[in-house]
């Protein structure tokens, strides 16, 4: 394998391939951080892959009360979809079902000033059945939707911008527990402003390939090349010698730089946490507009 080494970790000479996607950011606030987190977790559930879930979403970071529009603790959530229309549909569904329903919450536009927007409160207000009311505060319109607890306050619209989705790191080690610990440490290091890790805990154990060997109708199937149990069964295995378990971390970000720096943090953290091999997934460079060579991440963050 060509590449380089970080301590005892072999870094493969390859690249992650990513794509442009549209995204929005919402700020969920609540009476307590715990309730804001409940709403954010619910809203970002079943949002791991745009192929199967129509969007990808994750908690970006926690917000101190001083950082939120209503002065309460909050959570920033990023949601990605293929186009602006997709963002618009998904954000209304998820805020309507997971945030409005959650005790004490309010939901605000996290991309004020974006050139493009999609409706949020403008659509959700109809749940108010004619009893809704709006307020313009500091030049922005909010909808007050009466609910059984009191009122749900929501921004009329949210900004939409173009982000980068599909950055990734693939982390392996001899033992499953060691590989998982390295992946967990990497995921923790990779989160931050402008970054969403949409899979459970930020980690994927069932990485996929495009299409399937046995079916023309399957959009994706298991990445058999990185499945250690198939190493002796398939001719094109990519599982390195000595690797017994592999985990992938998929990164969606608000910019190419955000994804690159997140990958850099993850790569170096994984190397320091017991990973023996780190590589990345791509499609030969033919499908994605953004390439992130691991060779460019050699310098620590």
């Amino acid at each position: 394998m060509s590449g380089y080494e970080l301590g005892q970790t072999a870094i493969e000479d390859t690249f992650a391939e990513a794509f442009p996607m549209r995204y929005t950011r919402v700020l969920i606030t609540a009476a307590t951080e715990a309730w804001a987190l409940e709403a954010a977790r619910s809203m970002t559930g079943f949002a791991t892959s745009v192929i199967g879930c129509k969007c990808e979403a994750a908690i970006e970071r926690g917000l101190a009360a001083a950082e939120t529009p209503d002065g309460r603790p909050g959570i920033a959530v990023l949601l990605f979809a293929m186009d602006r229309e997709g963002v618009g549909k998904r954000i209304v569904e998820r805020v309507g079902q997971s945030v409005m329903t959650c005790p004490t919450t309010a939901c605000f536009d996290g991309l004020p000033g974006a050139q493009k927007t999609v409706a949020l409160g403008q659509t959700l207000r109809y749940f108010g059945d004619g009893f809704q009311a709006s307020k313009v505060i500091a030049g922005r319109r909010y909808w007050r939707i009466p609910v059984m607890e009191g009122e749900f306050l929501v921004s009329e619209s949210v900004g939409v911008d173009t982000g980068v989705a599909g950055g990734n790191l693939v982390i392996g080690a001899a033992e499953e527990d060691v590989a998982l610990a390295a992946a967990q440490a990497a995921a923790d290091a990779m989160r931050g402003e402008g970054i969403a890790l949409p899979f459970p805990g930020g980690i994927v154990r069932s990485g996929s390939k495009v299409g399937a060997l046995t079916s023309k109708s399957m959009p994706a199937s298991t990445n058999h090349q990185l499945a250690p149990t198939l190493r002796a069964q398939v001719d094109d295995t990519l599982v390195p010698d000595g690797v017994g378990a592999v985990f992938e971390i998929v990164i969606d970000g608000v910019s190419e730089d955000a994804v690159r720096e997140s990958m850099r943090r993850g790569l170096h953290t994984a190397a320091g946490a017991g990973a023996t091999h780190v590589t990345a997934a791509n499609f030969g460079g033919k499908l994605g507009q953004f390439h992130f060579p691991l060779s460019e991440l050699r310098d620590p963050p």
Partner: protein
Amino acid sequence: MTLTLTLRTEPPARVLAAPLIPERLRALNASAVGALELRCGGETPAVGDLFEVSGAGTEQEVLVLSGDLRRFDGIGAHMSSGEIVVRGDVGAWAGAEMAGGVLRIFGNAGARLGAAYPGTRVGMTGGEIVLTGDAGEEAGAGMRRGLVAVAGRTGNGAGLRMLAGTVIALGGIGDEAGLGNKRGSLASGRPVEPLPSYAFATRYQPPALGMQLLRARELGLSVPDALVGGRWARWSGDRTELSRGEILIFDDEGSRE
């Protein structure tokens, strides 16, 4: 550079100060501003006769008026953009029929703050007014949109025939507030007895009001934390109109700072 008008001496009669709004003074130098005429009784003195003028109208559109301006009516009336900062008391009709921008008054205001002029139905249609002192009668009368936030008290009849928008009086709203109110919000930081055409609904933490209080604080008002996160009694009315308006009365005395 900010355009600053400092009162030289008290005018002999009431002055209509409505022409002194940022969008009309934009890009004028001090001498051009000083040459503008204002109506004062039967006279039309130049601005330069009444004020010491310094600075110039800028793209930032900040106009500072300084002095005892109780004889100046209509300060900020019809303004639609920019910012006026007043250091001193003002007369009646300040911010009347205002459509946008920010009017910050560090002092008291006369009657009809942000209201409609006589003969017109609609008062303020946008923008924000913050007042550190007390306001006179009928603040926000005919208001359709925007925010009037008063640190002190408002006189009687605040929010008269309000269509929408918000009037907040941290020191309490006067009697007969919200008469004929359709969809507007009145908030009183002190106990007040609403008109009989209002009905008690509940006590709760109104999220939009909390944000408006934070916004008022951002614009220079001293707003206690207890009001921002506290409970308010909601009274719905005016039942002689749509009954979609509200009077919010702070009802969390135990948490007042």
